């Protein structure tokens, strides 16, 4: 399996009661808690951790896009990606992704991804996302009912722009351009595309029709993700779609230490900070029109895997460290325990692309660096064999070759 290094680029110095006294850490999150100088230091810490991961054999360094939130200070993941493109060697850079409907005209995304692919020598994974309701409907003002149509129109434009050999005219409903001829074009002829989603059957249809990689990116772990990930595979099988596990990306918080007791001591506070400091106002999470009726219906019909009480306690930082582990929010402990739990997860849910969340909340940099070291040197080598016999067209060839040359491909020598 492949490993994608990730951290929600949290603001690390939130006041202790931030999650209790604020209605929302999104959209209307109070800016007075964030010192821009500290934000700069946080960015540098995340960069150092990603550069370290590149040297430890991660298959990609993954970035996401969010707006107006203390949870992820990456309104432009491409800016961070450009630094990584110039300062890393092996790993791919996974944009996961650019929120297409927010760019006008959306060829801006085609241009920036192409620039990054050139800068990195063909190491870009082009994740494209609808964007959360908070990002799209509220921070960027897109009428929710138009979001999907805008996304798909932009996707069509961008993917054509990458491939076209001649300038072409594009007369869309939302974007009109007489001359589409983006410079540069990507190094990769078929740049890998991922579309993460939150379980809408409409997205599954698109992902399957285009044979893209799907992703379920949550921080709630296996137990709450299972109905959606298994739902995707059942649906894909029923449609005769491609069942290759490398078409599934999944996020997992990892907390590695020399002993289980050490793991609890080192990570417990940061894990609770991570979940507790992220209140999302309900009206920002569920604007009308964002989800289609079919999607709302499938959410309502999906079996509840966790009690409301458990979910509430999880988001308030009230579960014990090992309760978070048991419910799958985190996978914690010694490298052997972590390896065994990840193998179980990835086998059960057919996950070929594991997005490892290696830093959470206000975790000290040295703990995250040790997390990287232990996972990179002791866990990944135990797991590279999983799904290694399956074709992987969803990560760049260049990074596959470079990582395999240094760290092995997981296949028998």
């Amino acid at each position: 399996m492949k490993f994608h290094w990730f951290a929600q680029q949290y603001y690390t110095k939130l006041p202790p009661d931030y999650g209790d006294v604020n209605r929302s850490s999104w959209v209307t999150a109070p800016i007075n808690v964030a010192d821009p100088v500290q934000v700069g230091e946080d960015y540098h810490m995340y960069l150092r951790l990603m550069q370290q991961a590149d040297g430890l054999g991660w298959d990609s360094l993954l970035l996401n896009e969010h707006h107006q939130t203390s949870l992820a200070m990456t309104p432009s993941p491409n800016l961070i990606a450009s630094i990584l493109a110039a300062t890393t060697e092996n790993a791919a850079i996974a944009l996961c992704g650019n929120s297409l409907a927010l760019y006008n005209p959306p060829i801006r995304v085609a241009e920036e991804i192409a620039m990054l692919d050139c800068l990195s020598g063909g190491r870009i994974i082009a994740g494209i996302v609808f964007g959360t309701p908070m990002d799209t409907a509220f921070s960027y003002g897109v009428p929710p009912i138009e979001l999907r149509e805008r996304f798909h129109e932009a996707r069509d434009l961008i993917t054509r722009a990458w491939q076209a050999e001649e300038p072409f005219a594009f007369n869309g409903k939302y974007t009109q351009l007489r001359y589409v001829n983006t410079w540069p074009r990507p190094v990769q002829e078929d740049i890998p595309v991922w579309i993460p989603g939150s379980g809408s059957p409409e997205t599954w249809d698109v992902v399957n029709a285009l044979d893209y990689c799907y992703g379920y990116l949550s921080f709630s772990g296996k137990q709450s993700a299972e109905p959606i990930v298994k739902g995707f595979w059942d649906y894909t099988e029923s449609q005769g779609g491609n069942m290759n596990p490398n078409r599934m990306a999944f996020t997992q918080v990892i907390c590695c230490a020399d002993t289980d007791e050490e793991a609890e001591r080192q990570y417990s506070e940061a894990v609770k900070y991570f979940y507790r400091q992220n209140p999302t106002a309900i009206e920002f999470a569920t604007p009308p029109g964002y989800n289609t009726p079919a999607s709302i219906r499938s959410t309502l019909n999906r079996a509840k895997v966790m009690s409301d009480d458990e979910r509430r306690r999880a988001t308030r930082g009230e579960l014990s460290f090992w309760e978070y582990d048991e419910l799958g929010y985190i996978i914690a402990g010694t490298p052997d325990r972590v390896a065994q739990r990840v193998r179980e997860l990835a086998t059960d849910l057919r996950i070929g692309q594991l997005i490892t969340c290696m830093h959470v909340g206000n975790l000290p940099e040295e703990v995250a660096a040790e997390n990287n070291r232990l996972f990179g040197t002791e866990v990944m080598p135990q797991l590279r064999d999983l799904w290694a016999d399956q074709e992987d067209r969803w990560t760049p060839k260049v990074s596959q070759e470079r990582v395999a040359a240094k760290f092995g491909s997981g296949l028998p020598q």
Partner: protein
Amino acid sequence: MTTLEIPNIGTFDIELLEEGSGAPLLYLHGYERHPGTAGFLTRLAENRRVLAPEQPGYGRSTGFENFTDVIDVALYHRELLESLGVEDVDVVGHSLGGMFAAELAAIAPQLVRRLVLVNPFGIWLDDEPTLDPFGPAAEVKAAKWHGEAPKDEPTNFVPDPDDPHAAILFSAQNLGSATKFMWPIADRGLRRRLPLIDAPTLVVHGTSDGLLPVSYADEFVRLIPNAELALIDAAGHYPMVEQEDEFVSVVSKFLDA
């Protein structure tokens, strides 16, 4: 169910509530939902032919995907009236329906005899930013009503014993369709078209509307060439519900003048 086919544009299957006989009155409902056979509509129908279509994209009415912008909605209403064989019609529009009614009166002035706008959306005042009509549910509910919210708000929703989620889906779909014209700000340029309205116009406004302060009604009256204002006290966004008698009386008086 009435079907309107506009060649080369699309098909609209419309729930059309029709009541009474006499001079025609087109009623366009607000952003939340069609009110169903509400008391005020029945009373207006005592001496008129009330035509109250449910908007495409609401409830069971289809054809929403044929709309690109609010001008398409105005032209759709023009076609709908023509298909019903109605001309020289009185138009009453409430809330988002007020925006649509004003657009129709500006774009097809020959069709509209008299125009009534009830707590209409459609313009924005920088000096008086309004509450987000899609904001926190409890806050919006409190803002809509002068007094306690009624136990049952007027609706054309019909519960489905086989579908426990029907009410949630009904509401999500209706409000989702409203976002096309009201998100993030309910201003699609109507201010530039209000001066083109020929019809004598009455702007009715519940003075306690927490979604639209009275200054918004004043601005409509200022921009429409021949408009007068009727304020209804002790009423919010739904004056026809909270003060039904007064509402029916001022509207009837204006239409009969």
